[in-house]
């Protein structure tokens, strides 16, 4: 089980620059749809990569679904070598994205994001419009179902963040 609140707290406490996207962001906006992982888009600057590596190291990040004992280390060099990582950690499933199709990278998303105070920390959640753009861009039918829900949500939400 993914401990969403604890993962958010750990990342924020480590000073990591990130924006919550995906299912948790949809839930934060008011979607009743479930998810099993925490998806974030993170800043690709070297300093942030070092923070991610140091912050997650105690929670043993490993490639989700990979055979055990591969020589994988989520260190600065590994993060620098590629933008996207699908991880399992001691706190659950965490997906790191350098950018998302249709909506962009950290700077693009952070500019429109919504700051929310949850679990004793403040974190950025992707704007509903950007989340819809990203879901549309995948071209997957199940994501279009989510878009339908998010568009209705946008119409009904007067104050999505309380």
């Amino acid at each position: 089980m993914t401990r969403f609140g604890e993962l958010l707290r750990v990342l924020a406490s480590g000073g990591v620059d990130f924006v919550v996207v995906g299912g948790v962001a949809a839930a934060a906006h008011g979607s009743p749809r479930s998810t099993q992982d925490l998806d974030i888009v993170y800043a690709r600057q070297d300093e942030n990569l070092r923070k991610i590596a140091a912050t997650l190291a105690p929670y043993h990040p490993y490639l989700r679904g990979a055979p055990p004992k591969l020589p994988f280390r989520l260190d600065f060099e590994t993060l620098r070598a590629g933008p996207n990582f699908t991880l399992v950690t001691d706190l659950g499933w965490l997906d790191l994205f350098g950018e998302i199709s249709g909506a962009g990278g950290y700077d693009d998303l952070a500019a429109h994001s919504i700051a929310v105070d949850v679990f004793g920390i403040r974190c950025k959640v992707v704007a509903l419009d950007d989340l819809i753009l990203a879901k549309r861009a995948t071209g997957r039918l199940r994501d279009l179902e989510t878009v339908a829900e998010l568009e209705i949500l946008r119409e009904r939400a007067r104050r999505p963040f309380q």
Partner: protein
Amino acid sequence: MSTRSLPRSSIDDIIDLYKRDVDVTLIDAALQRTVEERIRALEEFERFREELRDATERRRDAVR
């Protein structure tokens, strides 16, 4: 950025079809909660799903 600025396409027709099946009562219930409560609800559902899966597996093993 707004999806309203995108030109309409057949994708929008599919989305409109899906909208007919969206349960707005679930959305309205979620909107009554705080953001933290919404995220906690995800965790609670995950916990329930794991418990259910474990119980099903135990039952399946007992039947074998």
